[in-house]
């Protein structure tokens, strides 16, 4: 359309608009149409968002805020009283003999810091394994499967376990890994071992394995979506210009899938840091995560100390998520 035509159309619309609203100042018709259609049919925004906002304040914001507040309260042995004390934080960071050079615990980090560190260490290992396993899976589904119907059904088949209870999936490892479990029976049958190995269950091995199985699907989803969004024409163009498959992968596919990787890793990271049930089921409670520490202190009614652990966990999560977002600027990539 030429500029002249465009101008003519605009003028016509303006005339029409002016005709509708009588002697009022000229209003750009397009802007007015925009305003008219932008109005929600019937409901003001405030009414639409009010119930959900109140719900989120009561069940999301207040609980998290109260964790912070209660972490300064005083434990009374069977409950807590309002106070403003840093005693709980001191107990979290420092053991009794921390500054006493004669004490065997001299300058040793407290058990709670070490637990948080263990939780973090497991989290990083499992995150790495999840990424290694999930990326090829997402790549296969998005790039290798061409038919959309197949793509969708194969993707859903992978994602279904996400909708089952993770407790069920954690418990399901027991018959696999136990002394008389499937893996031991299999290894005995093929003669790889002479007697059942107890190493498989209640060990770092079983814990890591179960966690990877539980959370790998959380990584597959976002990576799949970001890979599927890549314009296939881009890859064609690169190929036509003589790029090798490896170059295409490194220069196009990896950078464009980074936002998906970041989102997937954030999900896995946050879930793993808050993990508490799996350690009990497949690690036999031999080691604790900060999640189990929180629950234990809640169970013995020391709420302020549970709150301190929870707050430190929250802080560690925020730092982790910020780091991931620093590495990949999701907002810029979108």
């Amino acid at each position, binding site marked *: 359309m030429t500029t002249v035509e465009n101008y003519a159309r605009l003028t016509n619309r303006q005339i029409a608009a002016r005709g509708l609203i009588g002697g009022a100042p000229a209003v750009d018709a397009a802007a007015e149409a*925009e305003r008219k259609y932008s109005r929600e049919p019937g409901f003001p925004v405030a009414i639409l968002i009010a119930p959900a*906002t109140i719900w989120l304040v009561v069940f999301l914001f207040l609980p998290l805020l109260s964790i912070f507040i209660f972490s300064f309260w005083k434990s009374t042995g069977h409950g807590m009283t309002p106070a403003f004390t840093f005693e709980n934080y001191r107990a979290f960071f420092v053991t009794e003999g921390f500054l006493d050079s004669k004490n065997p615990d001299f300058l040793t980090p407290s058990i709670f810091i070490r637990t948080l560190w263990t939780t973090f260490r497991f989290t990083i290992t499992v995150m790495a394994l999840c990424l290694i396993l999930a990326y090829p899976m997402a790549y296969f589904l998005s790039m290798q499967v061409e038919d959309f119907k197949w793509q969708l059904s194969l993707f859903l088949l992978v994602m279904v376990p996400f909708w089952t209870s993770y407790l069920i999936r954690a418990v399901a490892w027991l018959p696999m890994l136990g002394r008389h479990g499937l893996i031991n029976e299999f290894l005995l049958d093929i003669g790889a071992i002479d007697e059942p190995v107890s190493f498989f269950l209640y060990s770092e091995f079983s814990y890591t394995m179960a966690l990877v199985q539980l959370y790998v699907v959380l990584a597959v989803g976002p990576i799949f979506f970001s890979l599927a969004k890549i314009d296939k024409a881009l890859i064609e163009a690169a190929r036509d210009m003589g790029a090798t498959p490896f170059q295409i992968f490194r220069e196009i596919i990896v950078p464009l899938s980074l936002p998906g990787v970041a989102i997937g890793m954030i999900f896995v990271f946050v879930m793993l840091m808050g993990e508490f049930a799996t350690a009990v089921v497949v690690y036999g409670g031999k080691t604790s995560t900060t999640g189990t520490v929180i629950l234990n202190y809640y169970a013995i009614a020391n709420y302020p100390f549970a709150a301190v652990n929870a707050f430190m966990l*929250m802080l560690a999560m925020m730092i982790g998520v910020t780091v991931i977002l620093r590495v990949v600027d999701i907002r810029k990539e979108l």
Partner: protein
Amino acid sequence: MARSTPERRRKARVKAGFSVYYAIFLIFVYGPMFAMFTLSFQGPRGGVTFPMRGFSFYWWERMMGPSSVGDIKSSLVRSLILAIIVMVITAIFSTMLAMAFRKKFRGSGVLFYAIMSGLMVPGVLLSLGLASLLRVVGIPAGWWYSGLGVHVVWTLPFGFLVMMAVFNRFDGDRGGRARHGRRRVDGF
């Protein structure tokens, strides 16, 4: 019939390799659950280990009967009722929210992140916060209000994103107004 070039053969091999990987992946993800399911048909003397000692519905019958650990029927019914209430509330909320989010409004960014944080707040934190808060206020926790409240926080982001996508499809031909929201949905 397509000609069999080296390039084509290489591609087929890569695809076959990935398919094998897919199969192993599925076994990894589903295997333990199927093993557990099979073991539920153990004979009365068997435990959670292979080989099976007979085949029976003994444990299934035990589950249906009364027990000291927990009554399966009432807990199943309770789960079901909770699920239905959560479903209805989530559906209503996410429809309303998605209608509101068709246009940018004051605080829409904050609200968007608040909804999304439901995906990321671990249960242990939310439960601890709410349980101790209720204790201070003096209300005993119960599945049908505090439990319900937390569950909606967890399900809301899913419903919200789906409804945003649905509304954006409606608005697609009405111009760029919906574009802002749509880009955010794609991101997730």
